[in-house]
């Protein structure tokens, strides 16, 4: 097991390296000049050249990647100009390891930006995850148990309809009506636990989390329903009934348990994806998370932030993948013990 995890971790690191090279290559091939953006609107060629030099954009692709990779381990200075270090060291931004780059547009290291925005995205992801997993699995089980009835059709139909609408649509409506016009909840504004306590934090996340949860829940209702139906027809469920177990035990302990494995797998990866910020939801509710940062960074083509974010999010997914695989082995003794 340990060897297996180590093997997966090494593979993950390799994947991350390849992934970062591909990312660099993609952005390097871009016909958009990042220096132009970093330099701003009133920018002469000379100014642009200076900016490019200070950000290292004037290097070739491999050198840029090399510097980035080095920065991750030992940190980096922006600009890395020995002369300036003497005349005005205070104007040099030091980006400590693990350095994912320095954003000239946001005048901050990418690591700091991520530190700032990450808690928000994580909060939304956690609460939304709780909503959709509990809601999706519960409704899915109900639909499966009431198969063919009006309840089943209603649940599946509703989840389909909700799924049909893009998140921004649902989010905007929730914001406009539930929060503002009907004033059932305050207009969501991210409140960290440190400020608002658990309840403040939770209530500030209500609408964005519901928006996201609705989107994901649709899939989970259908998925859970299908898996539970499948496992209800398994022989071991028949065995459980033949033992005289109460229906609840049969459903939850036996049928759902097996159905949960693929759901957990899916959920783990979905959650990892979400940690990287629900771009649309964060935009709709003006939540200063990774997703909004990504949108902003994209607006001014803030290359270091974009690249940093992409690589960070990729590592989330890769790690989640490993965790899910390990989890899978933990859940399923057939995998664990073979």
């Amino acid at each position, binding site marked *: 097991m340990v060897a297996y995890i180590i093997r997966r971790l090494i*593979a993950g690191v390799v*994947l*991350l390296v*390849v*992934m970062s090279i*591909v*990312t660099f290559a*993609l*952005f390097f*091939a*871009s*016909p*958009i000049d990042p220096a132009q953006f970093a330099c701003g609107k009133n920018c002469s060629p000379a100014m642009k050249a200076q900016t490019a030099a200070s950000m290292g954009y004037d290097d070739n692709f491999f050198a840029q990647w090399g510097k980035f990779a080095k920065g991750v381990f030992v940190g980096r200075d922006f600009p890395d100009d020995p002369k300036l270090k003497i005349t005005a060291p205070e104007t040099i931004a030091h980006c400590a390891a693990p350095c994912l780059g320095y954003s000239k547009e946001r005048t901050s290291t990418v690591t700091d930006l991520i530190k700032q925005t990450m808690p928000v995205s994580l909060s939304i992801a956690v609460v939304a995850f709780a909503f959709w997993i509990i809601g999706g699995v519960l409704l899915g089980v109900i639909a499966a148990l009431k198969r063919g009835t009006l309840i089943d059709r209603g649940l599946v*139909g509703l989840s*389909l*309809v909700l*799924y*049909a*609408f*893009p*998140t*921004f*649509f649902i989010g*905007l*409506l929730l914001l*406009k*009506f539930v929060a503002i016009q009907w004033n059932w909840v305050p207009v969501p504004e991210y409140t960290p636990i440190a400020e608002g306590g658990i309840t403040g934090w939770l209530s500030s996340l209500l609408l964005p989390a519901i928006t996201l949860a609705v989107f994901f829940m649709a899939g989970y209702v259908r998925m859970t329903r*299908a898996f539970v*139906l499948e496992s209800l*027809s398994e022989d071991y469920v028949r065995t459980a009934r033949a033992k005289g177990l109460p229906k609840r035990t049969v459903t939850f302990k036996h049928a759902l348990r097996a159905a949960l494995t693929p759901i957990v797998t899916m959920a783990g*990866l979905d959650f990892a*994806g979400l940690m*990287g910020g629900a*771009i*649309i939801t964060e*935009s709709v509710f003006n939540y200063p998370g990774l*997703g909004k940062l*990504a*949108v902003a960074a*994209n607006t001014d*083509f803030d290359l270091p932030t*974009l690249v940093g*974010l*992409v690589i960070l*999010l*990729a590592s989330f*997914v*890769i790690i989640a*993948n490993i965790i899910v695989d390990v989890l899978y082995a933990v859940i399923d003794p057939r995998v664990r013990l073979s």
Partner: protein
Amino acid sequence: MTIPASEMEGHAVPPLGESEEGVAGKVAGRSPTQLAMARFRADKLSMISFYVSCFVVFAAVASPILVKIGVFDPDGLNQDKLNTDLGGIPHGAFGGVSWSHPLGLTPGNGEDLLSRLSFSMTYSLGIALTGTLITVLIGVVLGIISGFSGGFVDATVGRFIDLTLSFPQTMMLLALAAPTVLLIRKDVSELPLLGFLENPDLANGLFVVIILSAFGWPPVARVVRGQVLSIREREFIEAAKLIGASRKRLYFKEVLPNVWAPILVYTTLLIPAYISAEAAFSFLGVGIKPPTPTLGNILRDSVSWTTADPTYFFLPGIVLALTVVAFNLVGDGARDALDPKTHR
């Protein structure tokens, strides 16, 4: 309508030694596909959804023609029919419903909503279908190759899948949108035969298609690979090897027909997902740009007119929901029909 298989086993097939049943003429069997189609037809909800989907497809195909011959005018302005003092809300009830504009007008410019909704199908469905096609194509090819070859090839494709999945899709979508579209319009369109990509709508549409398929294929590949893995183990594959079948025959004659069903199901479910995706992308300003009508573009505009022009707000939403739900139900129906197990 369905002839139960067990009945045939009982009677239609002559038992050994009974020569009396010398049925004259050819007895054509019903292929699994035909049976699935019969099952599908028997499901009312699926059939209704199928008709709705067909109607949508019809609208998508017919709209450009109707625009050409002047029946539809999605870009025609009717500002004179708007109340400019109220920010351009159409005069008249229900968003300016009239004989010439059966679904009313859009606020602001007074374009014909029916024309726009109908024409939007051409783009939205065009993107969804092309995206699905490419996604499935990549997925199927890689899935079959990796599933059948196993070993190194399989591992490589597996890593490639991991790599693809590790990219944050929406972020890449955002970050690559502008540069890629620029690239397509500038450089790609200079290639022979690709001149049409200079058109911004096509270039933007292509970009969405590229993103959808670039990130959409791994699940297809996984599904197909899984199928191929199990089919590879079936004895009929060994039987085929034993009669000396070539690799080509194994792939295309023995394996491929057996993976069609899951592919088809996946395809039908991918289309509505991509229609929704296009709508979501347009919120981020990615994809075909307004004023060209796509479901996403219209919805994005209409969602801010909730109170000012409720007709304009509701109609596009209903059309999108109906389309996506219909396509999804067709997919569900196809799955049930193709996999009789779920029928039980």
